[in-house]
């Protein structure tokens, strides 16, 4: 099993394989996005309290979910690269950081745009918002480490350790609304009993979340391909690729 893993985990195989996957993942993402946006912006009824303003949920919540999910992927990939020295895992971790930062940024900004009309404020320093902001700084710190350290192997190792140190923040973000009084409301979907959102509003939300998931899968491969090229710029197979491009 490990042989298989190492074979397909080799940078070259990954580079070729990912080329095949990206268009498919991207295509599925586009279809889901169109379905989710139609459902969320047109078909879903307005909320009984927030009217049309609640439609921000369809970008805010999937972004927030992705910001947590991508961090876990980044930390896991970082640990895999650290322990088993899998180069592709390092590339995936490095490629995940800007995406995670983007989604965290979107979750914060769309939340702010939602908070202003509904809560009456752009920002409050409650536990949920503050821990999500710390997540953004963790991503930015990781990215800064990658640019600051020239040797890419050392950068990957340092980044993995930073990512692992920050993992503690993930459960804090998730449970902050239950552990402390916050302005942010409690969980809607992930509580154990039935979700407290009407089915006609829930379906587009889940479709949008799935669309964001496929988006991440497609774009992280796209970015990891570049990271691998950069890692292997002096290897024989990259030279071959360049010869092909010249010819």
């Amino acid at each position, binding site marked *: 099993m490990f042989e298989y893993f190492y074979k397909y985990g080799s940078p070259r195989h990954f580079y070729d394989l990912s080329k095949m996957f990206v268009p498919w993942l991207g295509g599925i993402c586009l279809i889901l996005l169109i379905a989710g946006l139609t459902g969320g912006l047109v078909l879903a009824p307005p909320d*009984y309290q927030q009217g049309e303003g609640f439609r921000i949920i369809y970008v805010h919540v999937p972004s927030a979910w992705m910001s947590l999910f991508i961090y876990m992927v980044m930390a896991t990939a970082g640990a895999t690269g*650290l322990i088993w020295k899998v180069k592709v895992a390092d590339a995936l971790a490095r490629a995940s950081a800007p995406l995670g930062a983007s989604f965290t940024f979107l979750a914060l900004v769309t939340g702010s745009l939602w908070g202003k009309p509904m809560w009456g404020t752009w920002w409050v320093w409650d536990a949920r918002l503050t821990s999500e902001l710390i997540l953004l700084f963790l991503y930015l710190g990781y990215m800064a480490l990658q640019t600051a350290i020239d040797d890419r192997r050392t950068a990957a190792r340092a980044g993995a350790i930073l990512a692992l140190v920050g993992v503690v923040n993930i459960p804090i973000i998730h449970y902050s609304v239950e552990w402390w009084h916050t302005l942010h409301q409690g969980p809607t979907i992930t509580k154990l009993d039935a979700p407290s959102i009407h089915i006609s509003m829930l379906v587009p939300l889940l479709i949008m979340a799935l669309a964001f998931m496929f988006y991440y899968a497609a774009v992280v491969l796209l970015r990891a391909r570049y990271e691998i090229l950069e890692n292997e710029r002096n290897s024989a197979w990259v030279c071959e690729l360049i010869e092909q491009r010249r010819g």
Partner: protein
Amino acid sequence: MNPRRRKLMLSVTFIVLGMGVATALALKAFQQNLLYFYSPVQVAAGEAPTTRPFRIGGLVVAGSVKRDVESLAVRFVLTDTLREITVDYEGILPDLFREGQGIVANGRLRPDGTFEASEVLAKHDENYMPPEVADALTAAGVQLPYRAKNTAP
């Protein structure tokens, strides 16, 4: 598994667990400061600061909102279903401010036990539903926050 990998694996576990324990202890120590707001019960028990401003959270008691006709001044009663506290505020209220709605007010406690708010924020709950469903629920006797007709600006 070779010894080097085992050592690395142990370090990784140690980092994650160590950070977890350290953070849990730190958060426990700062528990009070992480509360975004106090409830009327806590205020009644004297847990809230009396010298500096703090935030108070609760539900607006139905029928308690009295608006001044000439200014933006408003007075309402806030409850956590156990204790009540009267809040005075002058300014613009958020869209979601309604009777029965959860809100958070920032301000000071006056010596007479009423609360002088400098800022009022609405805290919405985690329920989302179409107006028709809300109507049906109300008809069935389920308590929902008061709904104002056409609240959009």
